[in-house]
Each structure stands twice: as C-alpha cells, then as structure tokens.
C-alpha cells in the first residue's frame, strides 16, 4: 500500500487554497486530483494527509479534534483493505474478461452465417448477447434452387455454458447434407444430438423454416421456440405463427409437425427469441404489441434497418442492459 507522496502534496496545497477562497474551482480541482491519485493512495492515507495539513494550519487545534482523527483513521482501515482488494479484483476481472472475449470472438467466427441474397426476399438479422457470449443462434443455408433455410435457436440459460452448448448445435448442423432438407427432419435429427448430451442438463428451443422461393411458401416446424409472427400486408396486421413442438433434448424420439404458409407481396416473416419479447423496462414488462408496433412503423425500410431499429428501441427501454440474449430476424417479400 504505497502512495505517491508527490501527488498527495497537491492535496495540501489545494486544501489551503480552498480554506482561503472557498471557491468551487478548487473543489473541482480536488475532484480531478482524487481521480488521479485514486490508484495509489488509499482513503485512510487521504485522511492522514488532511489531518497533517490542518495541524500545520491550526497548531493549537482542539485536542478532541486531534484524537477524533486517530479514531477516523482506525475506522478507515477496513475501507483501505476493501480498496486494495478492489484494485486486485479489477486486474483479475480484466484477465478473465480478456479470456472470455477471445472465446466470444472465436464463437462469432465459428457461428458466423451470411445472409442469403435472394431476388424478392429481403432478409435482416441480428443477434446480441446479454453477456459476453451468446446462447442464441441463427443460421441461414441456401440450396441449389435458391430456397432459404433459416434456423433460430435459444439455449435455456445464458452466458458461457449456453454459448458452449450452442457451438455443439452448430457443428451438428454443419454435418448435415447440403441438399434441401425439410424443417421437421432437421429438428428430429438435432433432437437426437441434444438428447445424446442430456447429462449436460441443457435444453434448446429452435424454430426452423424453409422458404420456397419459386412458390413463395414458408415451411416451418418448432421445438418449443418463442412464436414468431407473419405480418399480412393486405390486412395490415400481425398473425402469430401458431406451431407446436417439444424442446430439443427432452425425449429420445420426437416427431415434429410441419406447417406451411403462403407469403404474399409486402408480407413480413418475423422470427425472434424470448430475449426480444420478454424484455423489461424497470418493473414494467414490455408488451409483445409494443415490439410489433415498432416493426410496423419501420416496415417500409430495408429488413436490416427494421431489425436494427427494433434493437435500438428496446435497448434504450431496457436502460442499455440486456437481460437475455437478443435475436431477431425479419424476412420481407417484395417482388
């Protein structure tokens, strides 16, 4: 617990100056000084310096006041200790954070997917982790005929363990053949992968969709995933995607239902994770309608802008602290 004795001298000068002038500018300087010396001087040392400066200015100081400083310094010892621990903790935290950041970057690289460029289908997507590592996941594939497969998934839980588990899902999906695969088949295969690692205690919700670009049909199946929406341009309203299916990893052999919807010009397909709909602002839960309203207001924009604007809107409502990983995909048919 060493201190920069030269810096602390400034304390003496400023204190004298303040006692002479009582000027706010000196308090401002004291604040700036305290920021600078904070690293090296602990609070009990500040008080000691304060006391010594006063002693020089007022040699005949009341003996009670003198004694009171001994008492104050003893009380401050605990704070000095906490203060030292604080600096050590910061160093440790930075190391750990750096390690996790490397892992998170790696995850970003590993999980990266590019958004397919398709005539007549404009796609926007974003996925933002609440902590450093993401336990949400989205993925696009495109087959030879240009049809677009889209996966959106959420590991129950967040942080490092969830992210770790999600990388497993990714490798499993990459091992699938590249030709057109229907949503129900993919979920059934993935269910087996997750179930095989059931001891990990992790479960995954996933929605898988296949957009047939020739016939403008959207096939989909869900494994307990947060329902998405289809915006019907003609009716100017959102319809919840009504699908059912068990989470991945709960049972060994699960059969998933497959659904299909026609997509018309100006319609939007909105896929999301519960981090979008269950976000909270203080004590108030944000209603799903509020999210949909923001999408509607932005529906004339390119899909990526819609997605980005919804994120910005909800980020602010949540005071810039996400409570859960946030993933949103918008697919917009425009011929």
């Amino acid at each position, binding site marked *: 617990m060493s201190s920069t004795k030269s810096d602390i001298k400034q304390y003496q000068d400023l204190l004298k100056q303040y006692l002479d002038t009582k000027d706010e500018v000196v308090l401002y300087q004291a604040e700036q000084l305290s920021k600078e010396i904070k690293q090296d001087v602990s609070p009990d040392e500040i008080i000691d310096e304060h006391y010594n400066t006063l002693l020089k200015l007022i040699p005949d100081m009341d003996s009670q006041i003198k004694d009171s400083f001994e008492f104050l310094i003893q009380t401050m010892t605990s704070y000095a200790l906490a203060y030292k621990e604080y600096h050590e903790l910061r160093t440790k935290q*930075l190391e750990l954070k750096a390690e996790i950041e490397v892992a998170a970057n790696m995850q970003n690289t590993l999980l990266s997917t590019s958004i397919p460029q398709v005539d007549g289908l404009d796609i926007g997507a974003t996925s933002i982790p609440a902590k450093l590592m993401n336990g949400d996941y989205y993925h696009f594939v495109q087959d030879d005929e240009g049809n677009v497969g889209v996966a959106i998934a959420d590991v129950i839980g967040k942080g490092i363990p969830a992210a770790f588990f999600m990388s497993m899902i990714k490798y499993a999906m990459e091992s699938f053949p590249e030709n057109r695969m229907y949503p129900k088949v993919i979920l059934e295969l993935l269910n087996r992968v997750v179930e095989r690692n059931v001891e990990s205690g992790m479960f995954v919700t996933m929605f898988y969709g296949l957009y047939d670009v020739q016939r403008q049909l959207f096939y989909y199946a869900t494994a307990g995933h947060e329902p998405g929406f289809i915006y019907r341009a003609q009716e100017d309203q959102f319809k919840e995607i009504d699908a059912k299916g068990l989470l991945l990893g709960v049972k060994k052999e699960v059969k998933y239902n497959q659904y299909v919807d026609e997509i018309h010009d100006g319609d939007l397909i909105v896929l999301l994770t519960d981090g979008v709909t269950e976000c909270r602002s203080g004590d108030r839960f944000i209603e799903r309608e509020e999210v949909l309203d923001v999408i509607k207001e932005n529906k004339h924009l390119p899909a990526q802008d819609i997605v980005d604007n919804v994120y910005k809107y909800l980020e602010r409502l949540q005071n*810039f*602290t996400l409570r859960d990983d946030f993933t949103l995909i918008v697919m917009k048919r425009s011929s």
Partner: protein
Amino acid sequence: MKGALTTVPIIKELDIVGARQSGRNLARDLGFGSVDQARIATAISELARNIYLYAGSGEISFQEVQGASPVGLKIVASDHGPGIENVSKVMEDGYSTSGGLGAGLPGVKRLMDEFDIISDDNGTKIIVVKWLR
C-alpha cells in the same frame, strides 16, 4: 423554484465550474447534505466535461422535480455533438469517455438515482435525477 428551470451553457472549460456551482447551490437550497452535494457536483463535472470535450458546446439545465420522493433535482445535459455511436459500450465500466481517469457515464449513473440517455446524429441528451432522502 419548483419546476423552474436554470440553464448553464457549456462553452469553455471554466463553464464546468459554473455548472457545478449552480448545481451545488440548488442542491443545498433543496436540502441536500454535504455528501450528496459533492456527489451531484461530481456528476455535473462529468457531464459538462463530456460536452466540452466531445461536443464542443451544449448546456446543463436544472429543475426541481417530484416523483419517487417529494423533492428531487433533475439535471439535463444536452448537446448537438456527433452523438455516441455505441451507448451500451460507453455504459460499461473501464470504457471511460473523458480520457481514462474519469468516472465516466457509469460513474454518473452510480452517483445519481435515475439515469437516461438519448443519443443520435443530432446530439446527446442525458437526464439524471437525485432524490432527497
């Protein structure tokens, strides 16, 4: 002064001190003690320094408010600077806006009871409130 607004323009560095002084006087009048006065002054420094350093100019305004408690001091710092690109990033500890040593915006948030920020191409507005306990 309930509801009345005091505004201090921030153009040169010394205006930071002027804003502190106004804020401290108002806080004292409202009944805040020494600890809270010092904390409010520190928050004002940080907000005003940000304006001075990153937006060039702007203003800090003060208002007596009622809400969670019968008496509160609301401080609004606004500028027409370039705006903050990534607000969440700036709200992280260790990512200081005023050159390393400052408390930064997370510090302002810790010093006050309420904190809100709006930032876009048209500038930045930070609204904070301290309630009298």
